[in-house]
């Protein structure tokens, strides 16, 4: 760049600027600017020819005035004139003005483009550079249109100066980012890639930015760059620090170039060529080795440059995730940084370790640093580093160290920053659940969690405890005892009261034997918290009370007294009042049996993805996803939905009774029609998402919700005729973001044939799409077809596999027959392999209506007055397959006293008997 000669100092400009700086007020400044503008206008009037110097000076002044925030509407012409000057400074100012003040004025653009073209084709490298800089600075579409063809030529031409090549590469990068459709590399691709071999390091550095950008868009075209990049990298890494002269930065050879090379390599999978791969591994090893060497300089720039390369190398190693040796070394290297003086290094080390922890090779290595990380969590001053430490602890947790980590996190929680508490709570809850070996530890942990950070414990966490306690009978007694003890603290969090109310209501009887926790003591303990709680909690407590009446008849009088009190029965809150009234009536009118049925222990919850995990995902997931939160009370909602009633307060409900019959006491049978009746009666009622268990729910029904999570809801509607079936799947996008590459496939067992109509790959946010599957049953079968759904949500690939609820009984054709007929056929099918029998305990209530509904749902005909014992049910049907028809007879004998069923099935084919029997046994 030519030196600025003294004559180019532009005194006038300096004077003007100092005048402006000295202005006392805004008004004075505006006056001075107006005066200057008038002066420039009179100079630009055109009657006198201005020399290049004054033109440059005035254009400079205009630029300055523009940058102060005033409108400039003249002087463009003079600036364009400057472009054709032969003096560097004049040309430079002209380009500066154009880049800052360009507007899409057609005639001017033409002139500017012309001037740029002239400069590009000139042999003067500085002029070419100026023109390229201008194109890059403007970067508009018009510029791209005019020069996108020209620049690659300059970039790869053999006779172009190195400095021009650098500018051209960066200029092209800019144009490509602005309008990728106009920059077509096609023929230039290989020559651009070969720039990596250029002698001049500057050119390589500039070119690699361009290549990285291009190859991230179309990796295949630029595949060849991998080997070149590797060899370049190895040359840099193995060179002595003095070799590269200008490109050595504080004893580190070409740090920027190295980082960029490493980043380019992260666009590609590990190289397949063994030699290349070996060389790369060698490079990475050298980088790791160098990190171990003592620093050559005490300057911070030296260590920064070195660490930049190291971290880039580590992220490449993580990206490849295939070299256990390197992964472990990287982990060890990072481990040293964990206690480094520099906060930034500690942060970066923790962050990288987080990703390392998820790799199977380095997980163990990461775990060795647990003490250091825990220490960081406790002693670190910077909150963002503490957050990373917590993340890493979460990531490195597994069964072996869960107890330690959870304990540490719990103890940290007491002092944690408010901003990360909620996330910490969720993480503790998830880890506790995921790695719980014995569930009493789990219960202890969560109760501790509620005690320490009650405010941050979201609903999901305590729903989950209750789900787990209900599903595991081995911890129920322990949970009741612990909760009872926890509640004895003078001040306990409302969430604790909720958990306590629920668990004591269900399992209070398990600890009632101890005189210290006799029923009345339990009740009084709960009721002492009642007045301090919010309405939803009170509602839950009321439900717990009515459960107490069932569990401990001796408390009935006390509880009725409580329910009858004005503060309950005349409560201003409708929900509380309704509960109080209904429970009071229920307890006074219904007989003990009815009460026992209505207030039966909650059935186990279906297993599914932990709702807490879902919540954590949502917290970190892309965008705000509006999701109905799943919770433990779906059954309560379930009832209210199917009854078409609207109870707006979504409170956790023990009974799910809250909106059944208006006076449930008067019609106790309505109350005892538990869950599944409604699921059948209600037309395609909305139910909560169940993954594999959902399959079984569809044995006796054809419509409903098959699957539901935070993103997607899948509803199903199916119809069957003879051996053919048609299934409608409704995919509902529950988010506000569209799903892309939405794709579904069905894999069928050989006995079934299916035909699926493909869908559009896009599902808009909030939209629902329908898909039809046609199924033909060739012969009898056991395995259900699998539905596989893949889509991208916010860049993350989601993959869901579901069993489609196609079971053999769907192809039943009901057959009516008289008693004599039935028994005749029954006897015909008397061979032992034709019969399948099961005796099992009732898992739901033994209600006549429910049973009948289920048997009808099975697809068979329910035969009345056939069996001499009216308690028993008999059914008959024919299973239609393409190959054959299989007659099938069924007998179900309930035993109300023992709560047992005996189910007998006879059919002409042994596999069918067995399968139908297995399916049906799960239903009662």
């Amino acid at each position: 760049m030519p030196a600025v000669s003294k004559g180019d100092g532009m005194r006038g400009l300096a004077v003007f600027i100092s005048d402006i700086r000295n202005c006392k007020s805004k008004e004075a400044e505006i006056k001075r600017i107006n005066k200057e503008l008038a002066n420039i206008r009179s100079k630009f009037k055109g009657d006198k020819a201005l020399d290049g110097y004054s033109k440059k000076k005035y254009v400079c002044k205009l630029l300055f005035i523009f940058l102060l925030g005033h409108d400039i509407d003249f002087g463009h012409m003079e600036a364009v004139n400057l472009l054709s000057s032969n003096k560097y400074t004049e040309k430079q100012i002209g380009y500066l003005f154009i880049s800052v003040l360009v507007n899409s004025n057609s005639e001017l653009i033409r002139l500017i483009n012309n001037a740029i073209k002239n400069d590009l084709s000139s042999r003067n490298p500085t002029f070419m550079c100026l023109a390229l800089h201008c194109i890059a600075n403007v970067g508009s579409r018009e510029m791209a249109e005019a020069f996108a063809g020209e620049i690659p030529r300059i970039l790869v031409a053999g006779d172009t100066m190195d400095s021009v090549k650098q500018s051209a590469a960066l200029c092209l990068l800019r144009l490509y980012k602005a309008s990728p459709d106009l920059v077509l590399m096609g023929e230039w691709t290989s020559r651009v890639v070969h720039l990596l071999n250029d002698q001049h390091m500057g050119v390589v550095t500039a070119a690699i930015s361009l290549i990285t950008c291009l190859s991230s868009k179309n990796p295949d075209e630029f595949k060849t760059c991998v080997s070149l990049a590797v060899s370049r990298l190895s040359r840099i890494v193995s060179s002595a620090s003095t070799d590269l002269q200008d490109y050595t930065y504080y004893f580190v050879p070409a740090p920027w170039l190295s980082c960029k090379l490493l980043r380019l390599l992260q666009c590609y999978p590990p190289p397949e060529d063994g030699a290349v791969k070996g060389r790369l591994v060698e490079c990475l090893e050298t980088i790791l080795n160098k990190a171990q060497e003592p620093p050559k300089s005490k300057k911070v720039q030296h260590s920064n440059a070195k660490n930049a390369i190291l971290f880039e190398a580590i992220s490449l190693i993580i990206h490849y995730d295939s070299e256990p040796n390197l992964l472990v070394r990287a982990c060890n290297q990072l481990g040293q940084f964990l206690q480094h003086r520099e906060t930034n290094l500690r942060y970066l080390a923790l962050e990288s370790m987080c990703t390392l922890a998820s790799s199977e090779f380095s997980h163990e290595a990461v775990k060795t640093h647990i003490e250091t990380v825990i220490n960081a969590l406790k002693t670190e001053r910077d909150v963002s580093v503490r957050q990373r430490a917590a993340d890493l602890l979460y990531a490195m947790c597994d069964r072996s160290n869960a107890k330690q980590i959870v304990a540490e996190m719990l103890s940290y929680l007491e002092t944690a920053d408010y901003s990360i508490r909620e996330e910490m709570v969720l993480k503790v809850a998830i880890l506790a659940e995921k790695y719980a070996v014995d569930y009493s530890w789990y219960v202890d942990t969560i109760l501790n969690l509620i005690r320490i950070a009650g405010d941050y414990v979201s609903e999901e966490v305590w729903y989950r405890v209750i789900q787990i306690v209900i599903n595991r009978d081995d911890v129920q007694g322990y949970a009741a005892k612990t909760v009872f003890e926890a509640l004895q603290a003078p001040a306990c969090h409302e969430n604790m009261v909720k958990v306590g109310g629920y668990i004591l209501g269900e399992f209070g009887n398990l600890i009632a034997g101890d005189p210290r926790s006799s029923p009345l003591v339990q009740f009084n303990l709960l009721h002492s918290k009642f007045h301090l709680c919010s309405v939803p909690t009170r509602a839950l407590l009321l439900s717990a009370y009515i459960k107490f009446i069932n569990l401990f008849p001796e408390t009935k009088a006390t509880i009725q007294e409580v329910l009858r009190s004005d503060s309950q029965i005349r409560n201003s809150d409708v929900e509380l009042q309704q509960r109080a009234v209904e429970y009071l009536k229920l307890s006074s009118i219904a007989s003990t049996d009815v009460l026992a049925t209505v207030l039966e222990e909650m059935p186990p919850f279906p297993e599914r993805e932990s709702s807490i995990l879902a919540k954590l995902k949502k917290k970190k997931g892309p965008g705000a996803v509006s999701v109905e939160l799943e919770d433990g009370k779906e059954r309560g909602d379930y009832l209210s939905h199917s009854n078409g009633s609207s109870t707006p307060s979504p409170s956790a409900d023990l009974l799910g009774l809250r909106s059944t019959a208006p006076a449930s006491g008067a019609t106790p049978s309505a109350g005892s029609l538990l869950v599944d009746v409604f699921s059948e009666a209600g037309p395609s009622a909305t139910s909560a998402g169940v993954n594999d268990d959902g399959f079984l729910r569809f044995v006796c029904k054809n419509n409903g919700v098959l699957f539901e999570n935070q993103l997607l809801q899948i509803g199903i509607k199916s119809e069957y005729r003879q051996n053919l079936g048609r299934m409608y799947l409704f995919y509902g996008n529950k988010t506000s973001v569209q799903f892309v590459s939405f794709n579904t496939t069905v894999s069928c067992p050989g006995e079934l044939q299916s035909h699926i109509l493909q869908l559009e790959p896009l599902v808009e946010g909030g939209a629902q799409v329908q898909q039809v599957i046609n199924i033909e049953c060739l012969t009898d079968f056991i395995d259900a077809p699998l539905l596989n759904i893949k889509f991208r949500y916010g860049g993350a690939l989601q993959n869901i596999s579901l069993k489609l609820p196609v079971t053999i009984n769907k192809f039943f054709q009901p057959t009516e027959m008289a008693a004599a007929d039935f028994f005749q056929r029954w006897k015909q099918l008397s061979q032992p392999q034709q019969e399948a029998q099961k005796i099992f305990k009732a898992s739901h209530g033994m209600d006549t209506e429910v049973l009948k509904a289920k048997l009808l749902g099975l697809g068979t005909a329910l035969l009345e007055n056939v069996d001499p014992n009216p308690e028993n049910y008999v059914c008959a049907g024919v299973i239609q397959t393409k190959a054959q028809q299989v007659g099938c007879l069924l007998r179900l004998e309930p035993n109300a006293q023992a709560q047992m069923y005996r189910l007998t099935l006879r059919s002409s084919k042994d596999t069918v008997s067995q399968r139908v029997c297995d399916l049906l046994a799960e239903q009662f």
Partner: protein
Amino acid sequence: MIGGLFIYNHKGEVLISRVYRDDIGRNAVDAFRVNVIHARQQVRSPVTNIARTSFFHVKRSNIWLAVVTKQNVNAAMVFEFLYKMCDVMASYFGKISEENIKNNFVLIYELLDEILDFGYPQNSETGSLKTFITQQGIKGQTKEEQSQITSQVTGQIGWRREGIKYRRNELFLDVLESVNLLMSPQGQVLSAHVSGRVVMKSYLSGMPECKFGMNDKIIIDKAGKGGVTNEAGKSTSGKQSIAIDDCTFNQCVRLSKFDSERSISFIPPDGEYELMRYRTTKDIILPFRVIPLVREVGRTKLEVKVVIKSNFKPSLLAQKIEVRIPTPLNTSGVQVICMKGKAKYKASENAIVWKIKRMAGMKESQISAEIELLPTNDKKKWARPPISMNFEVPFAPSGLKVRYLKVFESKLNYSDHDVIKWVRYIGRSGIYETRC
């Protein structure tokens, strides 16, 4: 009520800061500086709300006076107070400038203590303030003097002390008006009003009772109906009475009497004070007529011709006449020719300024200018801002006339005839614009 008062210099540095209420914190000082004084866009509204705090400001040359409050105060009251405050300061130390404020800051705090109590405005009458706040340092005051001041300040007539004696009883009456106009190029009046003040300077002995009369329509009608035989009044009432739209009086005027009898009677404060303020919109005498003629010759040239005509008695002389002709933003050169006065293109203000020292009534004068324009890329048309004018004339454009000012002092023996009275009319231009 007022929470605090700050005075800033042009850089936004605080010169005076007086906080009356606890709800105003120190950050309010910065909030005003950042959001108003140093605002990116010039703040034109005198009232600014920042974070539930209201700032009322006026600007005097380079000085910002800002009142801060968190309550819902009467904005008109606040501005009245600010103007009064400016008047008081001006009467103590002349021009309000950074220098003067720095030199008198003890005095200003003293004044602020007196005229605002806990955010409620108190006596702001310069005359009475001067009796107990002086710039001469602490005067040894006797007990009697002190008790006299106390009884006077707290008494019924707080604005005048007793026992004033003058050898010559003299009073000066100034009618000061500013006339505002917006006229179309064709000479049609689009809007016009006069806002006027009657300022009095009285040097009267004792506790005189004054009665002021002017040619207000209602007063004269009332007098006519009341059957007061006043020949002069009757003969003039038909023609020369004027319609006053609204008026306000100094606190010394007995409003009850004005309401019942339409007579303006008062015991005047000593020294200079503003007796009344008024506004009229009808039958305004416009002292000057501006006839513009603008012709665009092609894209690069503009010819402007402006004629001004004086429209009052030939015997009167208008002074300090200034006509301001805006020029387009792309002006590159101006040639001006004028018969009378001096004209100059002021690039810093984007206007041609034409100044005439004196001009008699019923005369006319003209200026013509050739403006060269630079062709620009902008297609924006020049907005043609109006031509504005400044002047001073020795009559009241509203037509207001002082009919009498009678002075009665029963205790001391001087009669109305012994008082020397001076009346002066000055009409100035307010915003006096003609579109072109």
